[in-house]
């Protein structure tokens, strides 16, 4: 079966995101080549920044942020209102764990921050988490530029 490299790289990045969310991810250093399989270094760096942030700071904060992002900004292939309803019920009844979720299960469910906090089991400042991830991204970008300049 022929694979479109770009589609495969995108699939790898989403799979990595899903594993970051479920906390079954591999070390970011091991993922570096995989994530940039199609040569899109910027996208790879962004996901790596999230992976490093999860190891450097509270992993649950990063996982919560990912849940919110996929829930509100990732489109669902079809309109499935039962999905959101079931997920919100499960969160309210504490019958769902972060380790059971997938991107498909949360995409398009439009969770609110209160529901994300309940799912994660703690409250956090999303702006602070975002800032930290972007800081790490800038660090990675700077390190890459230095590496290229040395060559």
């Amino acid at each position: 079966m022929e694979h479109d490299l770009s589609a495969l790289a995108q699939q790898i990045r989403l799979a990595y995101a899903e594993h970051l969310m479920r906390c079954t991810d591999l070390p970011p250093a091991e993922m570096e080549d995989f994530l940039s399989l199609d040569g899109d270094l910027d996208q790879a760096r962004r996901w790596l920044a999230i992976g490093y942030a999860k190891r450097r700071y509270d992993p649950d904060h990063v996982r919560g942020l990912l849940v919110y992002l996929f829930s509100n900004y990732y489109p669902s292939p079809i309109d499935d209102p039962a999905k959101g309803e079931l997920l919100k019920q499960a969160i309210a009844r504490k019958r769902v764990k972060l380790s059971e979720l997938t991107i498909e299960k949360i995409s398009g469910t439009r969770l609110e921050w209160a529901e994300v906090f309940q799912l994660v089991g703690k409250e956090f400042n999303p702006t602070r988490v975002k800032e930290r991830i972007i800081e790490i991204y800038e660090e990675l970008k700077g390190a890459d530029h230095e590496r290229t300049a040395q060559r």
Partner: protein
Amino acid sequence: MNEQHNDEWNWFRKLLVPRWGSVRQGRHPSRAVLQAYMKGQLRDLWRVGVRPLDPENWTLTEVSQHTLTCRDCARQLALLRRQELERSPSWRDLWQGFPSAIRAHLVVYALALLVLFAGNAFFVMVLPPPIVSLPCSAPGALAGPAQPADPQSAELNWRFEGLNRPVSFSCAPVPAPRPWWQTWWIGWVFLIWTMLLGLHILWDLLGSATPQRPAPASARGIGFVSVFV
């Protein structure tokens, strides 16, 4: 400030590029696999872009990624979810439907009753029943109605009239009635818990009446139980 906030979100939105095409083109998870996926029963492995020989061998991520791009499978999943939502609620759902205060108190009340019943049964088995002695009476009087024997008149009879020889008096032990706090303990516990339940529900109502704002972490720890204790 707001601009910076939007920039941050844009930075993250760039990550969320919708997928197109499935790497496992032409292969679709069976209904059984989709049901297992919904119940979270699939294996959670790091496996991307490989073609397993077993068509039923799907990982959690593979099904997730496939259904993100395959509209047919997404529709099947939506149907399964709709069926699950419309299913009659189980006892667990009914239980979950109660307000949390009532649920907590029912559990505590049931536990308290269990402990008290078990404790009571233990003491009844282990400890001898409390007994009291009836007022002493002569053996001859046992057949008749119980009358309090009067040692003074018996002595007078013997001394002046030579009638009765001194007789041994028997004092029969009989079980004592239980004290009030043992007889009515269920009602006692019930009354106390009813009051606590009322207070807890009131606490919850007052809490829900206030606007829903994310409370600070320190304030969230203050619950009914901690305040009550």
